């Protein structure tokens, strides 16, 4: 409900639900209002989101394809540069068959950009674009989609993707012909290639079923790189608008190579528009999620603009989920010192007791009265801390990674340990994981 549907998130939410439900009676009996319970629930969820949301959102942005954007068909030159529009939330559909570039357990939803969307569109990372022809491009870096100037033919190249081109499902191509605006002539290599190049590193053509009820996807067509233009089902409208800043480094780097052609930019701009939309959309989604953690919302919104590689850097972890090794290390010595003081006192007392009783015979206070020989060997001075220093190594790796679970079997041979665990939850690297079975090995 409030989260991206990771399995962990689902579990936690269900737990929250259960608890709240079972508490309702009690609360009412106590005379507390329902509102209190609701407040509690919201607080709980928000805190949970705050700490765990990081992982979910982060995971999503970094890895997965959340949704598929369909670029709108219609486009008017006039509209360009205006509203990087309000994000349009079109009822999502599940993408049945998409190949995630990275591990993605979530089925991405599909959104379609409004028909009147103005280019350039900014597309955030982690988005899959679907062109009118039904081909999917996974965007791993923020790109800008712009529209080609009139009269240009799509010239697309994704050399490695070419073989994968799927022919448009029926509904899509229908959209294509009626838009002369979008056709543009075969571009010289630069134009389309820029689009391609910017996403080249990450674009993956994905076969996909058409989404019939979508308004015909925008035509994002990429022309052949080489002049052999084929009438690609993909059309990109490219504007001549200057690319917004969303053109990011990778894009611009590659663009530099091709940057001569304005058109190259244009294609980007379309994508950028889409990105922008998505970004705004995502921001809204996050605000909806009601996360109190401000940085999750804003950062993530901003993150989308950043380089892919920076995404994970930016997300901050604070509060319960951080690793505070330095703190812990500092803590340990002071504790020990205090303890040393205690021990010292005790040891000294003990020593004094014994010495008082004359080294040869154990005083009656000792347990084994009969063992006189033992008394000879009262090597008591445990020189607390001095030579009999305790283990230096111990809390070297006191981490916050915790597993709470039940065990089926724990086995050890010499110093090799084997764990068969079940029904556990663990916090590792700040993220939460839940398992029903786990097997581990370790060396001591």
């Amino acid at each position, binding site marked *: 409900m409030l989260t991206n549907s990771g399995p962990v998130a689902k579990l936690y939410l269900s737990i929250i639900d259960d608890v709240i439900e079972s508490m309702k009676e009690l609360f009412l009996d106590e005379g507390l209002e329902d509102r209190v319970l609701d407040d509690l629930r919201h607080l709980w969820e928000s805190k949970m989101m705050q700490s765990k949301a990081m992982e979910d959102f982060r995971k999503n942005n970094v890895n997965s394809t959340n949704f598929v954007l369909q670029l709108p068909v219609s486009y008017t030159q006039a509209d360009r540069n205006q509203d990087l529009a309000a994000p349009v939330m079109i009822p999502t559909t599940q993408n049945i068959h998409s190949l995630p570039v990275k591990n993605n357990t979530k089925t991405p939803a599909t959104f379609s950009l409004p028909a009147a969307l103005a280019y350039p569109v900014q597309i955030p990372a982690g988005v899959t674009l679907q062109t009118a022809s039904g081909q999917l491009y996974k965007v791993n870096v923020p790109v800008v989609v712009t529209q080609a100037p009139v009269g240009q033919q799509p010239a697309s190249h994704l050399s490695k993707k070419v073989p994968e081109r799927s022919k448009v499902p029926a509904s899509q191509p229908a959209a294509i012909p009626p838009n002369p605006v979008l056709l543009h002539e075969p571009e010289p290599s630069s134009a389309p290639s820029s689009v391609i190049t910017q996403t080249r590193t990450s674009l993956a053509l994905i076969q996909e079923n058409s989404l019939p009820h979508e308004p015909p996807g925008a035509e994002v067509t990429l022309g052949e790189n080489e002049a052999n233009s084929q009438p690609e089902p993909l059309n990109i409208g490219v504007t001549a608008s200057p690319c917004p800043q969303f053109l990011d480094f990778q894009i611009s780097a590659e663009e530099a190579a091709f940057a001569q052609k304005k058109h190259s930019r244009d294609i980007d701009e379309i994508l950028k528009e889409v990105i922008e939309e998505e970004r705004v959309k995502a921001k809204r989604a996050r605000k909806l999620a009601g996360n109190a953690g401000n940085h999750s919302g804003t950062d993530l919104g901003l993150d989308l603009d950043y380089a892919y590689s920076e995404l994970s850097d930016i997300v901050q972890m604070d509060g319960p989920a951080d690793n505070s090794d330095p703190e812990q290390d500092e803590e340990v010595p002071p504790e*020990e010192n205090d303890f040393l003081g205690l021990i010292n006192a*005790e040891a000294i007392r003990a020593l004094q007791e014994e010495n008082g009783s004359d080294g040869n015979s154990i005083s009656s206070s000792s347990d084994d009265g009969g063992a006189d020989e*033992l008394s000879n*060997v009262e*090597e*008591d001075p*445990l020189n607390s801390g001095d030579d009999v220093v*305790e283990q230096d190594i111990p809390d070297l790796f006191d981490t916050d990674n915790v597993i709470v679970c039940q065990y089926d079997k724990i086995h050890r041979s010499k110093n090799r340990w084997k764990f068969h665990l079940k029904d556990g939850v663990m916090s590792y690297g700040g993220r939460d994981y839940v398992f029903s079975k786990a097997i581990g090995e370790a060396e*001591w």
Partner: protein
Amino acid sequence: MESNNDEALDIIVTNVVATFRTRCHLNLRKIALEGINVIYKPEVGKVLMKLRKPTITASIWSSGKIICTGATSEEEAKLGARRLARCLQKLGFKVRFSAFRVVNVLAVCSMPFAVHLIDFTKNNRPIASYEPELHPAATYRIKNLKATVQVFSTGSLTVTGHGTNTYP
């Protein structure tokens, strides 16, 4: 039996077992919960604590008796035992290191030749005993040293005996 050759025989002490007492009752559960590197064996009634520095495994009983195994020399055993006692002290017990005693020293050696156990036993009738059904090695006891040598047919020997500074 005799080794008059010039080759030196490497005899290696592989295990030293020592015991000591803490003179105080130990709460095994507390040790198991708060100690580090401990294995609790409630079915037997002891806690195993493993040390890294001198590689030592200690069995700790609630009576305060502790058996230290795994050391490679007697000094090491003593050092490990003291470290262990220190650990227990830090856990909050009034530990008094007492009655340290090396109980057993195990050394291993290998003859460059094989030994025919039946003949060996026959020739050393009262001192050596060999019961193949019980144990594949012949046992040769040296009374004055209070040591036992186990002779295997491959020529490997294990020597077990008291430590040099055993207390009566």
